[in-house]
C-alpha cells in the first residue's frame, strides 16, 4: 500500500511545486508571487520527506518557509509605498528568454546523458546524528566556507544599510 500512497503523494507534490513555480512567474502581483514561492518551498520540503530525508525536510520548512519567506514579505511590504504598487505589468525580456532557453537546453542534455547515473539509494536511511557527524568531520571545510559566505553577506548588509559619512 505504501508504494501507491507514495506515488500519489509524489504526483501531488510534483504538481504543487511546478504549478507553484508557474504561478509565481505568471502572477502580476508581487505579494502573490512571494506566496507562490513559499508554496514551492513547502512542496519541495514534502518531496524531501518522501525521500526519507526527514532532517532536510524539517530544516527546509524551518529556514525557507518559516524565515526566508517571512523576511522577503517583510522587505516587499516595507518598500511598497501604496498597496496598489504591488501589481506590476508582466515584462517580457528577450535576454531573459534566451537565458531560460540556454539553461533549459543544458539541463535537458545533462539529464538525457547522465540521468541514469543516479546513485543507489541506501537501504537504511542514516539518522540525524550520523548526518551531523559527517557534516562536522568529512565535510567540515565546505560547511565552514558556507557559514563564512553567510557572515560576509550579513556584514555587507549592515555596512550598506548604514547611512551618512561614517561608512
Amino acid at each position, binding site marked *: 500500500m505504501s508504494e501507491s500512497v507514495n506515488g500519489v503523494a509524489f504526483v501531488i507534490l510534483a504538481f504543487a511545486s511546478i504549478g507553484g513555480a508557474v504561478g509565481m512567474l505568471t502572477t502580476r502581483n508581487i505579494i502573490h508571487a512571494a506566496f507562490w514561492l513559499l508554496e514551492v518551498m*513547502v512542496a519541495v520540503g514534502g518531496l524531501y520527506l518522501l525521500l526519507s530525508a526527514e532532517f532536510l525536510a*524539517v530544516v527546509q*520548512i*524551518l529556514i525557507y518557509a*518559516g*524565515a526566508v519567506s*517571512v523576511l522577503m514579505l517583510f522587505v516587499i511590504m516595507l518598500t511598497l509605498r501604496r498597496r496598489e504598487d504591488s501589481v506590476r505589468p508582466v515584462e517580457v525580456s528577450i535576454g531573459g528568454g534566451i537565458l531560460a532557453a540556454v539553461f533549459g537546453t543544458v539541463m535537458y542534455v545533462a539529464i538525457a546523458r547522465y540521468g541514469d547515473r543516479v546513485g543507489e539509494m541506501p537501504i537504511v536511511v542514516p*539518522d540525524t546524528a550520523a548526518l551531523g557527524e559527517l557534516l562536522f568531520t568529512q565535510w567540515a571545510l565546505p560547511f565552514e566556507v558556507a557559514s563564512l559566505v553567510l557572515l560576509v553577506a550579513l556584514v555587507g548588509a549592515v555596512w550598506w544599510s548604514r547611512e551618512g559619512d561614517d561608512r
Partner: protein
Amino acid sequence: MSQVLAPILPVLAAIGLMLANGVVLIYMLRKVLGHLHLRLGPVHVGPKGIVQTTADVLKLLSKEDIRPNGVDRWMYVLAPVVVFVPSLMAYAALPFSETLRITRLDTGLLYTFAVLSVVPLGVIMAGWSSANKYALIGALRAAAQQVAYEVPLLLSVLPVVMIVGSMDLAEIVAFQTGVWLGVVPRWFVVLLIPSFVIFMIAALCELNQTPFDMSEAESELVSGFATEYSSMKFGLIFLSEFSNSFVISALAVTLFFGGWTLPFVPDSVLAPIAPVVFVLKTYIGIFVFMWIRGTLPRVRIDHLMNLGWKWLIPISLAWLMLVGVVVKLVAPGGVA
C-alpha cells in the same frame, strides 16, 4: 481496523483536543485574568459561569461571515487555514506518555518548531489581504517579532539536545527520569536555568502574549491582523492561538520539567496516569503564561527588538558555548 482509517484517527483526536483545549483555555483565561484583576470573570451562565464559553462558541458559529469590500479574496480566505493547519500539525510529535503520541519522530523537537514557524506567514497573509492599515501593521509587527525571537528560542533548547544527544522528545523525557542526591528531580530546569529563562521569554514572544502582544495591541491596533475577520474564520485564528499556547507549554514541560514523568513515583503507578500528568503540567505552564499576562504591562516595539537581538541572542550563544565545553569535559569522546 482498516488501513486507511487507522492513520486518520490520531488526526481527528488532535482536532478534538484542539477544540476542547480552546474552550477550556478561554474559560480559564477569563477566570484567571478576572481574579488577577480582582474581578470575578463570567458568573451567570451555569455554575461559576462554566458554560459561558460554550455559549460563546455557539454564538461565534452562528454569526454572519462578513467579507469586507476590497480584500484580496483568495488570500483572505486562505489565511485562517494557513494559521490553523500548522498549529494542528504541531501535535504530531508531542509525547503524552511513553506510548500515547501520534508519531515518533527522530527530529521531533525540530519538527515542532518548524511547523510553528509557518504560523507568522498566515498572520502576514491575514494582515495583508484585509486591506486595512491596522491589520497590516499588526501583521508586520508579528512577523518581525516572531522571526527575531525564533533564533533565541531555538538556541535556548540546543543545550538540552546536546546533553541528551537526541532531538526525539520521548528520549529527552526518558533522560529526565529519576532524582539526584535522593531529593532533586533530574529535570533540565535545575541543570539549565538560563536556557529555561530564555525559552520562557522567547516563547511568550512567539505566542504574541502580553507583555509582547504588539501585533494585536487593542489600544493601538484595534485587534491587529484579525481585525477584519468575523465568524468562524476569526474562530479558527483564535483556536490556533490557544492551541499554540498549549503546544509551547507542552514543549516546556517536555524539555525542562520531565514530560509525563514524576519523581518518586514508580513506573507501575505512573504508567496509567502519565497522559493526565502531562496535561496537568502543561496547564500549570499555561497558568504561568496567564499570570504573566495579567501582571506585566506591554513592552514597546523597539525595546522588544533590542532585547531580542542585542541581549537574548548573544546570551544564549555564550551559554551554548559554555554548555558545549562542559559537556565535552564531562563526557570526553562524544556527547552521545
